[in-house]
């Protein structure tokens, strides 16, 4: 059961704090939300991108700042999915019966290091290091692929951007709160690599996010509005994802299919009331909604065009503004869980969805193509 949720505000640079202070800000927000002190936490699980701050064993430094000294601490770092994995690990810690109250904390402060240089080392140094282009190269190829497969027009990415801009403008925590009112305006944004525009791509943000997970017996005393954790899953795909030139979403498909099957979800768009998905680019949101099985292949951009995914519409997707508006990498996956949980509590304020929230789907994606996904419920 999630009993506490907190995040910092996110900016491209936070010169007012160092990495440890930033983490402390996220931890404090969650503790305040749960009305707990660090003393009440039995174990801490932290994570970020290992190289992005240019620091070694960052967890050990910030340990003093988040009140974890003298407590069990674990650091998990699984790339883009780190935040999602943190949530899974916290759920597993509590489910194991060994720890009653666990904090998961994700953070990133990208201006301290050089994220792109670090990310370039992801490719195998012998085989394809020379052709790595970082995330932009990958997602421009993905966008091109989606246009071809789904028959989507070049405006499809911008339609997503307009929705996310509208959502982010209502979310006080969002990083990019740009006024992009129309598809025409989004289409004015310069190309990074066609058809991917600057407005289609996620920013490099700095921020932290934390959730506090508690065992059922404890949670009933702690939380005003507990959020129940149904299930979670993690699926990996092999590193050479361009093998044979074929782009694949097998990891996303498998994660969602298994999760839905285990939890008896037959009509995902009806059974689930809100999705906070990890879409590093607008085009990825469209393709991945299809991969998760929310709609037919090639249908997502048409539903987007009809405004289906807006927060006051049928199936709200990323009412927070999503990853395209806020991306402090180690925290990003955890923000998906946190934002989904806030919707289920009915606490999202201006960006609260219109539909009655019962169940949420949240996901994280990273690495060579791997997916973590969670299902949460408003009721037990």
């Amino acid at each position, binding site marked *: 059961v999630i009993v506490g949720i907190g995040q910092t505000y996110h900016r491209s640079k936070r010169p007012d704090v160092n990495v440890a202070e930033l983490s402390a800000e996220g931890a404090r927000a969650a503790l305040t939300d749960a009305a707990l002190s660090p003393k009440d936490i039995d174990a801490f699980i932290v994570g970020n991108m290992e190289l992005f701050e240019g620091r070694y064993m960052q967890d050990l430094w910030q340990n003093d700042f988040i009140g974890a000294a003298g407590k069990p601490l674990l650091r998990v770092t*699984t790339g883009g999915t780190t935040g999602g994995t943190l949530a899974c690990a916290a759920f597993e810690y509590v*489910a194991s019966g060994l720890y009653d109250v666990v904090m998961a904390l994700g953070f990133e402060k990208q201006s301290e290091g050089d994220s792109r240089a670090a990310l370039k080392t992801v490719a195998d140094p012998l085989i394809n290091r020379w052709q790595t282009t970082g995330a932009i190269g990958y997602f421009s190829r993905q966008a091109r692929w989606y246009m071809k497969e789904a028959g989507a027009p070049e405006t499809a990415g911008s339609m997503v951007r307009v929705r996310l801009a509208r959502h982010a403008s209502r979310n006080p925590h969002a990083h990019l709160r740009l006024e992009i009112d129309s598809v025409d305006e989004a289409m004015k944004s310069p190309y990074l690599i066609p058809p991917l525009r600057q407005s289609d791509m996620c920013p490099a943000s700095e921020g932290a996010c934390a959730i506090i997970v508690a065992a059922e017996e404890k949670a009933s005393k702690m939380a005003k509005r507990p959020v129940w954790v149904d299930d979670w899953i993690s699926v*990996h795909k092999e590193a050479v994802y361009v093998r044979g030139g074929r782009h694949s979403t097998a990891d996303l498909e498998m994660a969602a299919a298994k999760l839905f099957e285990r939890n008896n979800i037959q009509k995902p768009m009806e059974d689930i009331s809100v999705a906070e998905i990890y879409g590093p680019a607008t085009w990825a949101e469209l393709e991945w909604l299809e991969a998760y099985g929310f709609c037919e292949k090639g249908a997502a951009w048409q539903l987007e065009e009809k405004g289906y995914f807006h927060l006051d519409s049928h199936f709200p997707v990323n009412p927070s503004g999503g990853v395209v508006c806020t991306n402090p990498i180690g925290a990003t996956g955890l923000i998906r869980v946190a934002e989904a949980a806030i919707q289920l509590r009915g606490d999202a304020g201006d960006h609260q969805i219109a539909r009655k929230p019962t169940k949420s789907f949240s996901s994280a994606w990273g690495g060579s193509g791997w997916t973590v996904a969670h299902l949460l419920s408003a009721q037990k």
Partner: protein
Amino acid sequence: VVEEALKKAGLTFREGYDDIVTCSSDHWEGLTLTDIRHGEVAGAHLGPGEEKVCHDGANAVLFGCVKILSGHARVVVVTSACKENEVLNPSVIENFGFDAPYQQLLGLDFTQAGALQATCYMDRCGLAREDFARAAVKSRRAARDNPFLQGGGEAGVEEVMASQMLAYPITAMERKPACDGACAMVLACEERAGALTDRPVWIVGIGNCCDFHNLGDRDLAESRSLENAARQAYQMAGIRNPAAEIGVFEIGAHYSYQSLMWIEGLGLCGKGEAAGLLRDGHLERNGRMPVDPSGGLLGGVPRYVAGSNSVIEAANQLCGEAGEVAVEGRPRYALAHGTSGPAGQHHCVIVMKEGE
């Protein structure tokens, strides 16, 4: 190593296990997301999930246990790997492990932090450099019998003390040598264990704990976080008197002084008494309280692999697979320990019991 571990459990690649925990470090491999490779060779492609733990390997074992206890996994493969020789100057990486505003600027690395701790400990307990050197001599001698370790040697106390001084009182032979290596194991829930092996080793106690980072905020001569981690593990295992009940110990001593200090932190003897136990031969392989019969870290185990390798060495003692490094008699309980960070900031303790 994954292949070998799976073979021993009668499993085939990607079949029969549902989760993987890997342990490695981006910094020591010069790559980001090192777990892409480690997960892949363990079979993570569209099959078992995979998570990466970025502390000493003992924590990967702990996380594997948590996964099984949570009911979310039944059989978990745990792997650890590190190639320390990829790094030209480890001090630079270690220096970036200190907080940016204060301790990093002092130019500290882990050896210097260890030296500060060793000096505090010497002063508090009235120990001499010979006491520490003796620990290195013992480990290096034990390592000669272990076919997996390369750091064994015959050097005596004088030779160890005369080797290059890194940071007083730590000499080159008193620091864990840089090396490359990997290890893997299969963890299973009780119901599945019977089908996988006829000689199971039960993990009965786990605990980990993190101390203050700022060296000035700690009493360096003490190891509060180790005491705390050990307490969690003993409590879970129902062990009241670890020194008497546990028959063999594999501990994470990156420097010679740590072999003594961690023994005290684990509550196996009183403060300052470990040096005497070592001098009188009680910590030898055939002694009353065998510590690091495998040779331990000083015999040449890479960081990150260290703790999980200790778990394997300790488990081998319990199931009778320790070969040349086996202790006398058949111990019922064994303890493995791993540490990460400067001057033992973070500790993880795992207690195991022989299978019935």
